[in-house]
């Protein structure tokens, strides 16, 4: 089932539209970085410079709903969900295959970025601006934030038969989660428990450590817990509608 799900992205027009959109935004993002630092000394790793462009969050926020909107909603609309759920597969296997296929495809979308980084790396006099650890940290961060958004997207897709509604719902939820990163700046007391809570929920905070190559257990725990929670809700929904 995983192969079939992944195959849909690689053999359908929608898959190539998503790929083109992400490639365009990655290219735009790198162009911005190159133009900004052309002939100037870099004050941060290349990954952080890339992350500081607005296109990074555009890619994550736009691509994830587009990837997941089809997963359950399309099958429900066409009726293939019924024939799928009457074969000897469990709800967990169905959810696992769909989510894993979305995540792998999402990971593939970012491959051009790592290739471009390797290519750019040869022009740096100081390798510290783009070492393996930094790239690995960024890749892990990108995968984890994508994993969370994809899990939210799967949940949105299982709630409806309409791909459009699934995408809009996922985009709204993801944008709301993303906006929580800014709430901390609006709080009058920056040291209270509310500030601590919003700091933990801030996707910005988690990501800024990853792009510097810092692997903190709390960031990993945050993403793994939230991804598991969203997938658990999706699984419960599938089970309750059986």
């Amino acid at each position, binding site marked *: 089932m995983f192969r079939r799900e992944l195959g849909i992205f690689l053999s*359908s027009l929608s898959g190539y539209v998503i790929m083109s959109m992400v490639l365009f935004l990655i290219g735009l993002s790198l162009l911005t970085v190159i133009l900004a630092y052309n002939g100037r000394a870099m004050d941060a790793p290349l990954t952080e410079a890339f992350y500081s462009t607005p296109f990074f969050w555009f890619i994550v926020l736009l691509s994830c709903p587009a990837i997941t909107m089809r997963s359950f909603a399309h099958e429900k609309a*066409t*009726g*293939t969900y*019924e024939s799928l*759920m009457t*074969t*000897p597969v469990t709800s967990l296997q169905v959810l696992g295959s769909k989510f894993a296929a979305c995540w792998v495809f999402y990971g593939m979308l970012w491959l051009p970025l790592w290739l471009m980084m390797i290519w750019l790396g040869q022009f740096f006099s100081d390798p510290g601006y783009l070492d393996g650890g930094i790239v690995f940290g960024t890749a892990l961060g990108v995968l984890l934030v994508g994993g969370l958004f994809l899990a939210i997207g799967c949940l949105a897709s299982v709630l409806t038969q309409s791909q459009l509604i699934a995408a809009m719902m996922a985009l709204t939820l993801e944008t709301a989660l993303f906006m929580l990163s800014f709430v901390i700046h609006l709080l009058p007391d920056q040291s209270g428990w509310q500030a601590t809570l919003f700091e933990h929920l801030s996707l910005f905070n988690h990501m800024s450590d990853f792009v510097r190559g810092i692997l903190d257990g709390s960031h990993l725990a945050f993403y793994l817990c939230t991804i598991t929670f969203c997938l658990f809700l999706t699984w419960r929904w599938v089970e309750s509608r*059986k």
Partner: protein
Amino acid sequence: MIQVEQLTKRYAGHTALKQLTFAVDRGKVAGFLGPNGAGKSTTMRILSTFMPATSGRVVMAGFDVNRKPLEVRRRIGYMPENNPLHLDMRVEEYLRFRGGLRNMGGLALRKRITEVLEQCDLVEVRRKIIGQMSKGYRQRVGVADAILHRPEVIMLDEPTIGLDPHQIRLFRKMIASLAENHTVLLSTHILSEVEILCDHILILQGGRLLANDTRADIQRRVGSLTQCLLEVQAPWEILSEALHGVEAVGDFEISDQGEGFLSVRVNSKDGSDLRPLLYETCRQKGWLLRELTRHQPSLEDLFVQLTQLGHQGQGQR
């Protein structure tokens, strides 16, 4: 092979199935008959483990659908209503995918796919994209998928809907051939289909089972609807008295046709042909007979009668 006891399904606001009880024996073809919205698809969905019942018990191929849904799914082949297929896939690719979902693989799956392609007459279109095929071919792909894993029970929900008469005939032939090795549960609202194919007939309306009989029993019930129509020049009272005197005559209805002729609609008590008896009565009395015809009842008549009774019953409730 299929046992359903006191099956009830309630949705918010209405009850789709009410205390359904029936059983289908191994190797039989059972036909689920009923108007749209009777609860046929809901029953099929519960039997296929797709949907849980509110109450009641369903045992398919020896396994309870609630307790052992995966065991049931291994033993059933189900083609849902409207035959949903992955239209972007090729026939063979689709069957390979579906076989994979049923833990089939390797050489055994390839061999089995070749067999079902032959059985469903799909060999020539095996590499065609399903979305580009005609409705008749798509239905065959649906059946090929349902029989791929050699299930004990095959359930087909409205399999001939949307097919042209030629395709329907071919499709019926295919279903008849399946009955040799499988128990088949067929849902339809096409009466002739059930009459031709099914050993066991279940008539459903408004979520209630109105009839649950073998084809022979149903034919007996249909026979009891045998009617004769005669137009005879006779005095009303004497005609009525004479008809009461004929033992095989059930109830009858007389109406005046003018010019001294009476039209009589006579029901047979035991389904026998009343024409010789009625002719003999008229001859003995010396009445002038203008018309004597027999109305051969069909399953449709029984269906209409039962469903009308069902409607009245519901109205009274």
